[in-house]
């Protein structure tokens, strides 16, 4: 029934080097809110250590659900997620999450928001050490001046930076980013993308990120998963899945400003846009 998608799947797995020893392995993942009509089914992919993977697709295809399952915040209907050889069952400090809505606690200052995370990670740390860690990560996102401000006093971009600092401050094994720049204006978004890339390169963090923005995916990701929505076909309902995995051929040291001058940029961009326009949401 889903033969064409099965071929795509095999192709994508084959494209991943050393699938068995992958850092994060997702196998046969499915989720249905209505029984018998899963939003997505048989989703499988892997992430290597230090790899930056973006998933791109239309709303409703189940990207956020996949991310929530990886985070342990949601339970899949079927399938397994393994991180570092162990099955993911519930939320863990080993996976930092940056939420789309930044999810800062408005009654705490920036310092105390991040300290809350650091204390959760290392409850035995003395206050001075916690504060040192907090200040380190606040300055990593360039917010030293705003450390004692409440989130309501910050702009949207600054709040999202704090969210990123909080996720990094617990030094997780991997980061999950749920469309972190979706609510930001284009200029702010560009600046924070550059910052995020710098921090990720510097910390060699493994990252899984949801985005709607093709350029954002091309700039940040080593690999881009293209996900299509579930749809009714002549042969019956076809659940959503990852239709294709695109390996980013651009050099790893790339910048937002120089992105469109790189060879292969337009080919890659056109390929993804074509996918989103024609194949992601089969009529």
């Amino acid at each position, binding site marked *: 029934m889903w033969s064409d998608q099965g071929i795509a799947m095999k192709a994508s797995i084959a494209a991943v080097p050393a699938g068995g020893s992958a850092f994060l392995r997702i196998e046969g993942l499915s989720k249905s809110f209505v029984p018998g009509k899963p939003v997505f089914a048989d989703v499988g992919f892997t992430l290597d250590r230090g790899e930056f993977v973006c998933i791109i697709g239309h709303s409703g295809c189940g990207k956020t659900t996949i991310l929530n399952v990886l985070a342990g915040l949601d339970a899949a209907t079927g399938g397994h997620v393994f991180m570092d050889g162990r099955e993911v069952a519930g939320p863990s400090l080993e996976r930092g999450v940056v939420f789309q809505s930044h999810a800062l606690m*408005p009654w705490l200052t920036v310092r105390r928001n991040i300290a809350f995370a650091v204390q959760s990670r290392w409850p035995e740390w003395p206050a001075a050490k916690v504060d040192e860690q907090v200040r380190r990560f606040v300055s990593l996102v360039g917010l030293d001046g705003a450390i004692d401000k409440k989130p309501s006093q910050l702009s949207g971009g600054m709040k999202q930076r704090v969210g990123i600092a909080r996720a990094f401050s617990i030094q997780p094994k991997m980061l999950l980013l749920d469309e972190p720049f979706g609510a930001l204006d284009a200029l702010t978004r560009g600046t924070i993308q550059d910052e995020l890339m710098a921090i990720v390169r510097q910390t060699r963090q493994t990252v899984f990120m949801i985005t709607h923005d093709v350029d954002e995916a091309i700039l940040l990701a080593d690999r881009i998963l293209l996900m299509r929505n579930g749809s009714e076909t002549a042969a019956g309902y076809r659940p959503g899945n990852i239709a294709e995995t695109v390996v980013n051929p651009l050099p790893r040291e790339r910048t937002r400003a120089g992105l469109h001058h790189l060879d292969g940029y337009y080919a890659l961009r056109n390929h993804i846009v074509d996918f989103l326009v024609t194949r992601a949401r089969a009529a």
Partner: protein
Amino acid sequence: MKKSLRLRSALLSLALFLAFLAVWQVATQSSGAAASQAGMTAEQIEYQKMLGKDPGQVKAAGFPTPAEIGATAWKHLSNPFYDNGPNDKGIAIQLAWSLGRVALGFLLACLVAVPLGFVIGMSPLLQKAFDPFIQVLKPISPLAWMPLALYTIKDSSTSGIFVIFICSVWPMLLNTAFGVASVKREWLAVASTLEVKPLRRAFRVILPAAAPTILTGMRISMGIAWLVIVAAEMLVGGTGIGYFVWNEWNNLSLTNVIFAILVIGVVGMLLDMAFAGLQRKVTYVE
């Protein structure tokens, strides 16, 4: 601009107050001397006296003038702590009794309502299970509990405290449950990804998130408690500002009754301001 608005409103308040006093003064004065002996012959006055209505004394027994209230207030406030036996105590002592009862009943209500509201708010099952009881118990006038309280507790003072408890408990319970139930899911998600333990989550995430709503409930409860204590003390008697009002009514001393009404109003306002201040402290801007 803002300051001038404040100044102008204060001036207007003062003008309204003075106008009110003037009307009061005029109204109470004319009812006295003007209507009394004017146009009456000596025989008519004599006849009135035989009927037990002394026209010359109408003023003394009538509605007090603002000046008389002022004098009474000064008398009470200059010596608030005297104690001349059960029916004659200083205003501060009476107030202390009332405030003590309210504080005790309110505190007990807090101890029950906040933890219970927390549990109810966290569990949709309990929320649904408790709902019919709360819906039935909430609209009962606290004073309707009085006979039952007097019969079971047998102590009038404790019954007063119980009545305060029962009237304060509902707004706090409902608001706590509502506040806890509507804590943003994303903050709870943050707490779970950080593997925060349940107790720490309750105190560091849910409590501060729900605190403004909980304090709103407390403020409403305190307002109701202060309304109810006066009525309760009128019923149980003995001490307190409510009993003072009742006692002075029996003495037919309207001056003292009016003074007590003013005191009740001012104390109620101060209590409300105190809770408004607390509320401001825990309110956050998103």
